[in-house]
C-alpha cells in the first residue's frame, strides 16, 4: 500500500515545495476520493473531503514526523473529515453494531445459499456494483470505516488501527461484523440472481 511513500521528500514538503506536493496529490488523491465516496455516497461531499484533506495536510506537513507513512497519515485526516460530515448530517443516533459490547449473536449467519460460484458477469455486473455500494452504506459508521480501509483499500489490520486509533483486536472485531453483515446482504441479492440463472 505504501510502496511510494518513501519516494517523497518530507523535507521538500515541509518547506512547501509545490512540485513535490503535486506529486503527492497525484499519488494519493485517487484513494482518498474513493474512501470518501464509499463512506459518504455523495460525490459533492467526497470532493469536500478530498480538498480539505490536502488543505489540512499542507498545513500540518511541518509537524508530520514521518512515523507513519504519508498514505496512512492522509487516510487518517480523510477519515476524520468524512466522520465530521456524517456527524453533521445525523448527530449521534445509536446504530446496532456501534458498540463493542454488542452480543456476537447479532452476527450469526442466517443465510446458507451458495452463490459463490455464480459467473463473474453476474457477480460483478454494474447492477451488482450499485447493490454492493448501497449495502456498505447500511453498515454503521464504525463498521463501514474499518471495512472500507481494510477490504476495499487493502490496508493491513495494523495500518487500519493506526488510521483510526484502534487496537488490532477492535479492528478485527469490527471487520468480522462488517463482513458477516455484508455477506447476509449479498446473499439476499445473489440468491435471486442464482434462482434466475437456474431458470434459464
Amino acid at each position, binding site marked *: 500500500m505504501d510502496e511510494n511513500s518513501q519516494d517523497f521528500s518530507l523535507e521538500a514538503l515541509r518547506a512547501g515545495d509545490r512540485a513535490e506536493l503535486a506529486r503527492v496529490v497525484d499519488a494519493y488523491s*485517487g484513494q482518498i476520493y474513493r474512501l470518501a465516496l464509499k463512506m459518504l455516497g455523495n460525490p459533492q461531499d467526497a470532493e469536500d473531503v478530498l480538498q480539505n484533506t490536502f488543505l489540512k495536510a499542507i498545513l500540518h506537513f511541518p509537524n508530520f514526523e514521518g512515523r507513519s507513512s504519508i498514505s496512512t497519515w492522509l487516510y487518517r485526516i480523510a477519515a476524520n473529515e468524512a466522520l465530521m460530515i456524517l456527524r453533521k448530517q445525523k448527530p449521534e443516533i445509536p446504530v446496532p453494531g456501534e458498540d463493542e459490547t454488542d452480543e*456476537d449473536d447479532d452476527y450469526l449467519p442466517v443465510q446458507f*445459499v451458495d452463490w*459463490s460460484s455464480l459467473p463473474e458477469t453476474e457477480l460483478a455486473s454494474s447492477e451488482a456494483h450499485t447493490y454492493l455500494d448501497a449495502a456498505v452504506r447500511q453498515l454503521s459508521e464504525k463498521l463501514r470505516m474499518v471495512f472500507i480501509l481494510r*477490504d476495499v483499500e487493502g490496508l493491513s489490520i495494523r495500518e487500519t488501527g493506526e488510521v483510526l486509533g484502534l487496537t488490532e483486536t477492535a479492528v478485527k472485531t469490527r471487520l468480522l461484523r462488517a463482513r458477516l453483515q455484508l*455477506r447476509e446482504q449479498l446473499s439476499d441479492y445473489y440468491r435471486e440472481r442464482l434462482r434466475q440463472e437456474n431458470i434459464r
Partner: protein
Amino acid sequence: MTDHDDTRCNDMLGSLSDYVDGELREDLCREIEKHLAGCANCRVVVDTLKKTVYLYHETARIGEIPVDVRERLFKRLELEDYLKKS
C-alpha cells in the same frame, strides 16, 4: 442435518476473518477444515464470505478520480501549474 452442530459452528465464527485472510494459525486452520468437511452450512458461509471480501476488493480497481475533480483540487491547492504533468 445430523452433522450440524450449532455450538461448533458458532465457535468457528470468531476465527473466520483470519481464516479467509489466510492469517490463522496452522493448527486452528486444521480444526476449521475438519469442521468444514462435515458441515455444509459452514462451507457455504466460508465460500460466500471469501467471495464477499473478494468482490469488494475488486471495486477498488474501478473509479479513478474524475478529471474535473482533480482539476478543481489542483486549483484549490494553487497547483494549477502542475495540472498538465502526471
